[in-house]
């Protein structure tokens, strides 16, 4: 009896099912990222065709995407961790604003050297994230609300530090801000390079460390992850700590970018970060996506902005409408391309 049933699947059937498994794998998991990348390219080429005479073709315009969105990339990478684990972090923008304000205040008003201020700022950001993670995990309150409170809190703390913006005249800051690293075709800023390094580190952590895999597991099914004996609390708290850290780092890059602290900096940037993550093919339900996708998400948002600037004729409200329409077109095309593969 057992001898007869041992032939459970005919060999051809198995290879066929394996082959289909591979396509399914591609179809399910990497496709959204590839589609985003391809669409980004298509969009860039369209821009190239349309604004050629305005210098769009210069490599620097492309590199500017990194320079102008480095901080967003870092913040979005942090958000990727959180979203991958099935949570959400709304405090990103506020924490960025707070970091600019806090560092500006420490450097300018308290006269601390930058070298001291940077670790303090990163520490405060990470601690903020840790606290939110702690509350989310230990008291089982929904992340949306805890981080929304974080959004209010950090924005409020900005204003408590000062209602007015603080300009940073520290020479180290301005040197760092103005340093450009030549790359043959163009140049990148320190901020852009840091952002790329963060991206690489995040990729490594998510795919080659136990912690990274735990993040995916929790995003896939929290209850199961718990029952599988994964340290749920530790991982969740760590994820928000990472996001807090990334936000603070993004805040520092933002501070380099604008060399000032202002209580209204980066209002609403959490939505940009979340949008970038989602456009990059990560599911908000968690457990599915790639941090590389986040890079393309950020680039797409940056490119939309850039195209509108090159267009240069849109009135204020048409700017908003065009942003929405481009976003919508992008999402719909992305959706159409990934959906067809799945059926």
């Amino acid at each position, binding site marked *: 009896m057992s001898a007869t049933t041992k032939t459970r699947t005919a060999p051809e059937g198995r290879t066929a099912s394996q082959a289909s498994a591979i396509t399914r794998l591609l179809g399910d998991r990497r496709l959204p990222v590839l589609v985003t990348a391809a669409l980004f390219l298509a969009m860039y080429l369209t821009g190239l065709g349309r604004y050629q005479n305005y210098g769009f073709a210069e490599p620097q315009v492309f590199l500017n995407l990194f320079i102008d969105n480095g901080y967003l990339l870092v913040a979005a990478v942090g958000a990727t961790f959180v979203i991958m684990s099935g949570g959400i972090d709304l405090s990103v923008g506020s924490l960025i604003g707070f970091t600019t304000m806090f560092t500006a205040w420490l450097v300018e008003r308290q006269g601390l050297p930058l070298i001291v201020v940077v670790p303090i700022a990163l520490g405060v950001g990470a601690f903020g994230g840790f606290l939110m993670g702690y509350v989310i995990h230990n008291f089982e309150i929904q992340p949306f609300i805890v981080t929304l409170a974080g959004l209010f809190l950090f924005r409020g703390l900005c204003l408590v530090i000062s209602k007015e913006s603080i300009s940073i005249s520290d020479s180290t800051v301005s040197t760092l801000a103005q340093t450009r690293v030549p790359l043959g075709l163009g140049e990148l800023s320190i901020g852009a390079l840091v952002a790329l390094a963060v991206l690489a580190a995040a990729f490594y952590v998510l795919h080659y460390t136990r912690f990274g895999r735990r993040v995916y597991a929790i995003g896939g*099914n929290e209850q199961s992850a718990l029952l599988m004996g994964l340290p749920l609390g530790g991982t969740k708290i760590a994820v928000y700590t990472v996001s807090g850290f990334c936000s603070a780092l993004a805040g520092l890059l933002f501070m380099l970018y604008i060399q000032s602290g202002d209580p209204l900096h980066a209002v609403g940037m959490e939505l940009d970060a979340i949008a970038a993550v989602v456009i990059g093919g990560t599911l908000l339900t968690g457990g599915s996506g790639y941090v590389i996708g986040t890079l393309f998400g950020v680039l797409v948002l940056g490119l939309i902005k850039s195209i509108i600037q090159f267009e240069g004729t849109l009135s204020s409200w048409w700017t908003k409408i065009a942003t929405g329409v481009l976003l919508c077109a992008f999402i719909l095309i992305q959706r159409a391309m990934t959906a067809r593969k799945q059926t």
Partner: protein
Amino acid sequence: MAEPRPVLEMTGIVKEFPGVRALSGVDFRLFPGEIHALMGENGAGKSTLIKVLTGVHSLDGGTITLDGESVRIGSPLEAQQAGISTVYQEVNLCPNLSVAENIFIGREPTRAGRIQWKQLRKDAADMVDRLGLDIDVTAPLSSYPLAVQQLVAIVRSVGHGDSDGQGSGTKVLVLDEPTSSLDRDEVLELFRLMRRLRDEGVAILFVSHFLDQIYEICDRMTVLRNGTLVGEHMVRDLDQVGLIELMIGKALDQLEELHEHQLRSDVGETLVEAEGLGRTGGIAPFDLEIKKGEVVGLAGLLGSGRTELARLLFGADQPDSGKVTVGGKQVSMSAPNDAIGAGVAFCSENRKTEGLVPDLTVRENIILALQASRGWTRPIPAGQRDELVAKYIKALDIRPANPEARVGQLSGGNQQKVLLARWLITQPKLLILDEPTRGIDIGAKAEIQKLVVSLSEDGMSVLYIAAELEEVLRLSHTIGVLRDRKLVARLTNGPEITTSKILETIASGEHQ
């Protein structure tokens, strides 16, 4: 013989949930090198005892002693670290990760903190192989049916105790209904593995509603009833009848009744007819005819496509080819509501993800299908609704019999009954039951089978899928045999049809 010291001893265990005392003062002992059955009806508290042991639920009273030391286990992680490996009742794995990762997550092979993917995949493939499974470990878990997922969960947990595996510190292996969706071969394979582990000195706690399996593999058993301990026996000292009496508190003769029952012979005219229905990647085009009042059973091995077939017939998946007629009228198969409208009902094998809405109450879950077919504008009048719900709670003996209880908090078997009630209430013409007896205790299983028989007698057609061939054989007028996702044969039940005949058909894959 001097009694050896138990590796695990639980005394006076109390666990209360709001309104329910799931365990009241249960004692439990587990010795090294034994396979110990934990027995009891649905809702007796077996899973709860296990979850208390592994730190999923906190203790409300009692003590746990492990290796002679009193321990406090606060989470599954701590349980694992203390040497307790567990397969929980519902599959608890991460569907988004690959099979290999699911097996290894939390203890991936690393070098300097870096996960060694190649080694991980190789090891996983080996382990899966050893259980006689043939699957691609790099594919996401979600691409496999429930039974395979169950096996992966087993591989994961025994991996701890397997001497070739990684963490070899497992002292206690807990298996909560691991066999509920496996078929015979997988079960045998699992048993082989369990015996080996037992011989290595691992203590195994095994839960199953299949008494044959208990008698086949277990050394000793503990019986629970309504959250209290009713006995601890050596398996050889207690026969099945005695065990059943212990479990349900009275004698059970329904099983015998079933064995004797005669299949209704006069099935009516054709009710459902599928022609060339198929789906690429799913199941090859098939023809199927179901008559009024007929029970059609599906037999096949794990992954042979029984579920796929049922889903196509119900419109849960969109077919690529073919058509379905119900009562002579063609049904568009674009969504389940088309099939439901035509009087087809489908009880999914996967009650957790495809069946229940855990946050809703028993009552709401039961009336859901009926309500959906009436549309949102026509609510079922409260009186009628409560009456219907009460009737089915009683008929299926759902416990607790409280329509306000959240379904997510019911024991596995009772959840299954809720699901069944949901569809019975709609009085379908064709009821598709995919593994309806999965995780159901012996009494209730007999009840459900009796129900199928009586439904058929009342003229309802049933498409019956079960892992146990005997079950299929006992109930069906006609048996469809599947192999490699193809409907290969159609046997009319009769005295000459036996389980081995069916297995032969499956093996040879011969066409009718």
